[in-house]
């Protein structure tokens, strides 16, 4: 595949820009590369150093994804099972792509129509799969703490792809990576997380990660969707007016409003939510500075974000998806390297 001059030019300038950001962490990368944990269960178990290592490694993997051959052979001796007890398209595809690009073998397990429907316990299912010599488990489950339970009982390395309302660490990492890529920094960056904070594992991971790397965090949304003591628990700001939140922040990470919840008396209707808390183009343009718009997906167009905001040039939603594969490659690489598996 020939690299056309235009693409080669943009490729090299892209790398020149990244060089400057990379040098901020380059001194730390001269030290030990191993992560402090065997699993990735949550951001709360990671040190600041771990986060820096993951983000720096993800930068190199993003470069790999620009090459004609987007594969590296690093994990060719590893088999990974994607254990998804909860439905997911985006996260599962992202993990599967990351695994395949590392040359690992992947197995997909979805709960519907599986042994789980026949009443097999989580532990039995996993032990059965592991005795077929599977080395790592990527797991999504509707019960908070399910991966932690598993980690206590099985020898394989576990990556939490979302557990209940607890954490979604790879989403937190890819959000931070995207923020750093777009703005050039994380320390001192003002990030507003807007939406249903109470039920969001993405928010939990984001808040903890951003605090660890020195960013300033604000959560915004209707009072019924923000946990009562979150300000004290994490030492963050709380705002019930979305305009004020947008005026304050550099980056707005907008969360999905779950359509099911409108029947739970937490807010009146989706239309009212959009009028009071949705972000419209008019609102965005009326701010005193250009902020970055992020969303973990899938977007409810017309509820938390209007279409023209989601598709605007301030939105990095598609870059988030692209970065997701690179970040997950980095996590898989770092958790499997440097140790004999099983």
């Amino acid at each position, binding site marked *: 595949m020939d690299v056309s001059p235009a693409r080669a030019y943009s490729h090299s300038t892209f790398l020149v820009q990244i060089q400057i950001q990379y040098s901020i962490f380059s001194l730390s990368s001269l030290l030990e*590369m191993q992560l402090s944990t065997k699993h990735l269960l949550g951001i709360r178990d990671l040190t600041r150093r771990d986060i820096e290592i993951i983000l720096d490694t993800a930068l190199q993997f993003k470069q790999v994804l620009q090459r004609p051959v987007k594969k590296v052979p690093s994990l060719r001796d590893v088999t990974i099972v994607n254990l998804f007890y909860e439905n997911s398209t985006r996260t599962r595809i992202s993990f599967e792509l990351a695994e395949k690009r590392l040359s690992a073998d992947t197995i997909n397990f979805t709960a519907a129509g599986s042994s789980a429907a026949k009443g097999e316990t989580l532990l039995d299912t996993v032990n059965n799969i592991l005795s077929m010599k599977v080395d790592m488990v990527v797991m999504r489950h509707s019960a908070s703490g399910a991966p932690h339970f598993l980690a206590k009982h099985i020898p394989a390395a576990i990556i939490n792809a979302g557990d209940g309302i607890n954490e979604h660490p790879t989403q937190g990492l890819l959000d931070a990576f995207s923020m750093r890529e777009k703005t050039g920094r994380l320390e001192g960056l003002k990030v507003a997380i807007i939406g249903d904070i109470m039920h969001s594992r993405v928010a939990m991971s984001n808040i903890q990660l951003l605090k660890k790397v020195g960013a300033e965090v604000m959560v915004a949304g209707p009072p019924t969707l923000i946990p009562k003591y979150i300000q004290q628990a994490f030492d963050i700001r709380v705002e019930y007016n979305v305009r004020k939140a947008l005026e304050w922040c550099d980056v707005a990470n907008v969360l999905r409003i779950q359509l099911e919840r409108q029947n739970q008396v937490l807010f009146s209707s989706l239309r009212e939510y959009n009028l009071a808390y949705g972000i419209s183009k008019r609102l965005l343009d009326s701010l005193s500075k250009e902020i970055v718009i992020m969303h973990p997906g899938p977007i409810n167009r017309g509820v938390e974000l209007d279409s023209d905001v989601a598709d605007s040039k301030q939105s990095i939603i598609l870059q988030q998806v692209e970065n997701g594969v690179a970040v997950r490659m980095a996590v898989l690489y770092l958790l499997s390297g440097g140790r004999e598996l099983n």
Partner: protein
Amino acid sequence: MNEQQLSITIKRLSHQVLENHINLENTVIIGIQPRGIFVSDQMVREISQLIAPAKVEYGKLDITFYRDDIRKELHVPNHTDIPFSIENKNVVLIDDVLYTGRTIRAALDALLAFGRPAKVELCILIDRRFSRQLPIQPDYVGKSIDSIISQKVKVFWKERDGKEEVVLM
């Protein structure tokens, strides 16, 4: 090797490469991260002066993800920057020390991810003879030395260490 010898050797290597690839036609130079870069930077500077006003096509290759010892230890990945296609080109790989040959094997694998080169040649500053673990030999050698396994060859560069010399320890 002291600073003067190092500089003369690099000049000689640059001339040798140019001798085989007149005007660097259809040829690209790729330095291997992280330490081959210091050698290749200097060689590219030298060659650019010799073939001016023509430009040298110069890239940097990181082989961390192609290493065969990932189960033993993790290494820091560095930048790969190859802003051109290597399809049907002659590639000159440059590294500082050739020891077991595993780095070069990894580099050959990594190169294949960028295209199919017409020819790959290897240019090495220090060749530790008789310690190869794979059948890999250099085409251009700065200095050949015999060393035992317990010894280490250290190359110091002005940009990084403040001095330029090669020592056997």
